């Protein structure tokens, strides 16, 4: 099992690196799906089968599909790939890479400082999660619902085809 953890981790890291280095959006998205799936495996290994399922269904399924739809809508072809190639010079990577490296070192240092005992490894199943969700986190769930609603409305409004809107007075002027 522990081997599975490391394998999945390696896949996740590798595919994520691929995501951020691809020029073609569709390729990147497919690597992202791989990354998400491997994280789902990790979830399962960490005793969260419900979360793993959600990861596969919602993230890798729904959200990524959304991305792909958009990529299709925008007709990103050869042109955009070329542009990406232009943008992604090696020099672009140095600054962010350095920042991230420093951060990583610091984080690892901080993590290693805490002498955390390993333990647990217990499965927390969907029932427990459900009880928690609709018990103490009731309000948060409702807030999340409202957030989703807002997301829907926002997406609808933003995604709408904009027509040039003129004030009625201006329209009259145009007509008259």
């Amino acid at each position: 099992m522990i081997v599975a953890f490391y394998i999945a981790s390696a896949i996740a890291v590798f595919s994520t690196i691929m995501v951020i280095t691809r020029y073609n959006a569709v390729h990147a998205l497919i690597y992202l799906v791989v990354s998400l799936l491997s994280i789902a495996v990790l979830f399962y290994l960490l005793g969260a089968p419900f979360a793993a399922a959600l990861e596969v269904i919602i993230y890798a399924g729904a959200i990524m599909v959304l991305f792909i739809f958009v990529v299709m809508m925008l007709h990103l072809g050869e042109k955009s790939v070329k542009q990406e190639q232009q943008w992604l010079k090696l020099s672009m990577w140095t600054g962010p890479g350095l920042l991230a490296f420093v951060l990583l070192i610091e984080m690892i240092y901080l993590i290693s400082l805490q002498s955390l005992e390993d333990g647990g490894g217990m499965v927390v199943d969907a029932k427990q999660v459900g009880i928690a969700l609709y018990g103490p986190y009731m309000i948060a769930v409702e807030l999340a619902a409202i957030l989703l609603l807002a997301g829907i409305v926002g997406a609808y409004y933003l995604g709408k085809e904009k027509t040039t809107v003129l004030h009625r007075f201006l329209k009259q002027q145009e007509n008259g």
Partner: protein
Amino acid sequence: MVEIPLTHSIVLAAVLFLLGLVGLLTRRNILFMLMSVEIMLNAAGLVFIVGSSRWAQADGQVMYIFILSMASAEVAVGLALIVQFYKKFNTLDTDAASKLKG
């Protein structure tokens, strides 16, 4: 269940998070930036799940679910914005939209 070393999983989350960050910093294409954000969100979710597993509590997963719902809302709005952005500027270059400078 086999115990997975806590440190390792958290380091993994950190690595993923920072990869997301690197993506965010390097890419000019807004679509890729959104993807990087997703990676970072995922990394955060991973830490919650690790915590949930370590203490055998449901709260970590609950948090993960909230992150998930937030991420989906964000993606929905974000993608709608990208579409509008593309219509307006006819490119996905974020630097094209730097009107907000002081």
